[in-house]
C-alpha cells in the first residue's frame, strides 16, 4: 500500500460520447471506447440505457442477479484507469431498475451486464499531472 496515491492533481481533457449496441458487455464496451479514443484515464460523466440482465457484486461476495429484460440503468458512476500494459480497466457502480421498477445497486461485474437496446455513455478524459503508470511529470500547458 506504500504506492497508494491519495491525491492526484490534473485536469479534464477530451469528451467522448458513444452509443453501444445490444449484447455488448457494458464494462468491455466502455473500456473499448477508451481504447478507440486513446483515453488512458477517464471518468463516466453520464450514462443511461438498458441491460438484458444485470450482475452486481453483493456485500457477501455473492452476485446480485437482476432479471430482465430490460433492466434500466438509472445511475452509473465510475472511472477507467489504464494498467501498465495499456489495458483500460473500468470500475463502474450504479443503480439499476428491473422491469417492475424495483431498484438494486452495487459494483457492476465484468461479463454479467449485456446491453439490451442501447447504452448512451459520456466519458471525460482525465489527465493527471503525474502519470500514475510511468510516474512522469506531464508539462502543464
Amino acid at each position, binding site marked *: 500500500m506504500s504506492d497508494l496515491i491519495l491525491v492526484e492533481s490534473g485536469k479534464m481533457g*477530451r469528451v*467522448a460520447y*458513444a*452509443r453501444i449496441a445490444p449484447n455488448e458487455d457494458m464494462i468491455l464496451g466502455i473500456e473499448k471506447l477508451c481504447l478507440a*479514443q486513446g483515453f488512458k484515464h477517464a471518468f463516466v460523466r453520464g450514462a443511461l440505457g438498458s441491460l438484458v440482465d444485470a450482475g452486481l457484486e453483493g456485500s457477501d461476495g455473492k452476485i446480485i442477479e437482476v432479471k430482465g429484460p*430490460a433492466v434500466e440503468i438509472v445511475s452509473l458512476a465510475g472511472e477507467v484507469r489504464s494498467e501498465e500494459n495499456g489495458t483500460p480497466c473500468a470500475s463502474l457502480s450504479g443503480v439499476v431498475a428491473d422491469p417492475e421498477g424495483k431498484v438494486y445497486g452495487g459494483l457492476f461485474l465484468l461479463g454479467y451486464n449485456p446491453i*439490451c437496446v442501447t447504452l448512451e455513455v459520456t466519458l471525460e478524459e482525465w489527465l493527471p499531472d503525474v502519470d500514475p503508470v510511468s510516474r512522469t511529470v506531464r508539462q502543464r500547458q
Partner: protein
Amino acid sequence: MTPDGVVKRKQPRFLRQPGPFNPIRIKMESSPFGRHIRLSLKPGETLFDAIVKPLAELNVRAASMTILGGAFETLDYCVAPPDPEGDAVVAYSKPITAGQSYMIFGNATLGISIEEKPLVHCHAVIRTESGDVMGGHIVTEQAVVGNNPISVLVISLEGFELHQAYDEETKISLLQPMEVDSHE
C-alpha cells in the same frame, strides 16, 4: 450441459434482435473539450422545459447531464418489459404515476428528435409519493419541478450532435451521435 453433450459455461443471456445485425457496435464521436454548466431547474416548469429553454439560450444542442436530488410536484415514469407486440425485444410501459416525488439521482441526455425538435432522455431513481424507491425512464414533459430549484451539472457536447434515428437492428428510434456538417 446441453442435450447434445456440450458443456455449457456460465455466460450472460443474449437476446436476438428483430433486425439485421449492425457490425458497428460502438458508434462514437468526440470533441477536444466540453463546456461545464451548472443549471438550476426552475420551480413549476416541466423537467423538459427547465432543461431545454436555458440550454437553448446558451446554444447547447447536445449535452449529457447529472440531475442532483430534488423534489417534483408530480412525476410519471416508465419501465421497459418485453414488447407485448413482439416488434422489438422491449417496449416502454404506459406511464406510471409516482405523484409528488423526490428524484434521488438522474442522468439525462439532450438531443434532437426525428421531428428535429429538442429531446431529453432521462433515467432516474425516485422516491414516490407512497415512499417506494423506484427507477425508470422519466416522462420529462410530465414531470413538474417542485418549490425549490434542482441543480443539474451539464457537460455540453461540442462539434457533434445526438440525433434520434430509427435503428434497423433493434427496430427502435435511438439517439445516435452524428458529426455536425460545418458547411451547413
